[in-house]
């Protein structure tokens, strides 16, 4: 059975999603983009440096913006210089996903950049929902059926996209 993604000539990828699937994915991406949107900085030089920054108390944001150093002070200092740009990139990937879904085209046609944005965006969505579900957390209670179904659908979609991109990657000269 053909999957949702079809690799076509010159590295572009076709994506087949029905109206409900597009709406669902767009809603999820919009929501997570909102959570990741970087705050406005008092930043006249435009350097994107935070006065202070720590690991988020929200486990979802903490998973998407983890510490880079084991030492808490090093991690905090590094985060001051890097979190704003990283948030912006993740936010932009998700906004790109929303934009690529809001079209009359069927199937959707993704160029290489769009495919990468969708790949990163889908992964962040899975990380967010999986973290909320408590995947890997022995103490977490059993998630609701619809949430499991949603997570499984995103997993299936991302796996299909990885396969499509990988088929192309394997033909790249090394």
């Amino acid at each position, binding site marked *: 059975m053909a999957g949702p993604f079809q690799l076509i000539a010159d590295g572009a990828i076709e994506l087949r999603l029905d109206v409900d699937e597009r709406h669902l994915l767009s809603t999820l991406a919009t929501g997570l983009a909102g959570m990741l949107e970087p705050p406005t900085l008092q930043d006249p030089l435009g350097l994107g440096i935070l006065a202070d920054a720590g690991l988020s108390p929200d486990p979802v944001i903490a998973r998407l913006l983890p510490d*880079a*150093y*084991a030492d808490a002070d090093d991690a905090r200092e590094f985060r001051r210089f890097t979190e704003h740009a990283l948030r912006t990139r993740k936010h932009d990937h998700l906004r790109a996903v929303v934009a690529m879904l809001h079209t009359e085209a069927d199937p959707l046609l993704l160029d290489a950049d769009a495919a990468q944005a969708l790949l*990163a965006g889908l*992964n962040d969505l899975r990380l967010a929902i999986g973290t909320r579900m408590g995947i890997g957390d022995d103490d977490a209670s059993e998630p609701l059926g619809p949430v499991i179904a949603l997570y499984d659908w995103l997993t299936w979609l991302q796996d299909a996209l990885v396969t499509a991109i990988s088929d192309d990657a394997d033909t790249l000269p090394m």
Partner: protein
Amino acid sequence: MTETLLGFDAAVDTSSEVARPWRTVVWDDPINLMSYVTLVFMTYFAMSREVAEEHMLRVHHEGRAVVSSGGREQMERDVIAMHEYGLHATLEQED
């Protein structure tokens, strides 16, 4: 590969002794797909599929794997790139 950091260097330890090399460590997690982790290693580190799968399996079986080593600034860039892809990574100094 698009630039993933701001255009300037983050704060760097400028001690004058010869620096021990730094390395990027990717940590296992229960959500990321093995196929995705392999693709990230192939895409960002330009590993062949075989080498990427080796590293991915080491993460999976041992809980962590070193994916790159070198100067601190480059390792910081690698860690941020891994975070952008949703992998959990840290940098550490070799013993």
